[in-house]
C-alpha cells in the first residue's frame, strides 16, 4: 500500500511544479536580463488605488495586475541565448498544454502568445509570450523576450497590451 502511494506522489510531483520552473535556468545565464514579480508584490500594488500612472502601457498593466500570481520576464540580445529561449518556450508549451492565442508578424518581430484555458472563456490561468527579433536575411534569432504570467488573466486586456508592446519595439 505504501509503495503505491509513494509511486503516485512521485509521478504527480512534476505535474505540480509550476510552469515557471522551465525558465529558471535563464536566471543564472549571462546576457539575460530578468524581472520577476511575486504574488505578494501584486497584492501590495493592488492596494494603491489612488496612484496615477503616466504612460498608457503602465495603465494597461496596472489593470491586469490585480489578479496576477507571478510575472516573469527574461530578455536577451545574444543570439545563442535567444535560440535557447526559443527551445525552452516550445518545451513549456508542450508540457503545459498551452494553446496558441495570437501570432503577430511585424517587420522583423515575431510574437507568439500562448495561454492555458479555463472554464471561463474570457479568462486564462497562464500566459506565455515569446517575442523574437530576427535578422531578415538569415532568418536567425537575434533578440528574444519571454514573458510568463500566471493568475486569473483577462485575455482581452492581454491583446491590448501586445499592440502597445509591438509599437514600442518598433520605435527602437
Amino acid at each position, binding site marked *: 500500500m505504501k509503495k503505491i502511494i509513494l509511486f503516485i506522489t512521485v509521478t504527480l510531483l512534476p505535474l505540480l511544479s509550476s510552469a515557471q520552473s522551465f525558465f529558471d535556468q535563464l536566471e543564472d545565464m549571462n546576457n539575460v536580463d*530578468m*524581472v*520577476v*514579480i511575486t504574488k505578494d508584490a501584486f497584492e*501590495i500594488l493592488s492596494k*494603491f488605488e489612488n496612484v496615477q500612472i503616466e504612460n498608457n502601457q503602465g495603465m494597461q498593466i496596472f489593470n491586469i495586475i490585480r489578479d496576477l500570481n507571478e510575472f516573469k520576464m527574461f530578455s536577451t540580445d545574444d543570439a545563442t541565448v535567444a535560440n535557447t529561449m526559443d527551445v525552452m518556450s516550445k518545451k513549456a508549451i508542450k508540457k503545459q498544454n498551452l494553446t496558441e492565442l495570437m501570432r503577430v508578424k511585424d517587420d522583423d518581430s515575431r510574437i507568439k502568445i500562448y495561454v492555458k484555458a479555463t472554464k471561463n472563456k474570457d479568462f486564462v490561468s497562464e500566459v506565455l509570450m515569446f517575442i523574437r527579433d530576427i535578422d531578415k536575411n538569415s532568418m536567425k534569432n537575434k533578440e528574444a523576450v519571454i514573458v510568463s504570467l500566471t493568475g486569473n488573466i483577462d485575455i482581452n486586456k492581454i491583446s491590448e497590451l501586445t499592440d502597445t508592446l509591438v509599437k514600442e519595439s518598433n520605435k527602437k
Partner: protein
Amino acid sequence: MNKRSTIISLLLLVFLGTACKHEKSLQAYLVESSEKEGYMYGDLPVGLILNPKEDASEEVKATAKSIQKINAAFFKKTKNNEVAYQAEIATLKTIFTQKKYKTLGSVKTKGMHMKFYYTGDAAQIDEVITFGHSDKIGVGVARILGKNMNPASIMEMFGNIDINMNAIDLNQFKTIF
C-alpha cells in the same frame, strides 16, 4: 523528579534549543557592517525627516509614525576584494533564505542584480528590503523599518508631509557617490 517530568523537561529543552537556531538576522548583519572595514553605513532617523503638516489628519500622522527608520549598508567592490565581495553576497543570500523574508520581486539587468523582500504581511509591513549586487559597483542592502506599515496610506502620506532635508546627515552618504 519522576521519570515523566524528566522526559518532558528534556523535550522542552530540545524544543527550545532548536527554536533558537541563531540564524543571523538582517539586523545583526547591519549592526556588524557598521563596524566592518570597507563598509559604508547609513542610518536615517525617519522621525526627524518626515514631519506631518500642521493640518494633516490623524491617520497621516500615525502613518508617518509607523516608519521607524531607514538604514543601508554598502560594500564597494574594488580590484582586490573579490573574495570578500562574494562572501558578503553569500552571507546576505543566506540571511534571506529565512522564511520571514518574503520575496517581492527581482530585477537583473546588465550585471546588476536586485532583490526585494519584505517582512510582516501584505497589509501590515514591518520591513521593506532591497538587496543588490553588481560586479562593477559592489553589494549593498537597504531597509525601511517600520511597525505595521500600510502601503496605501504611505502613498497618501507623502502628499501630506514636509520632508526635512537638513536632518539627513548627508556626510554619511557622500562617500558612496
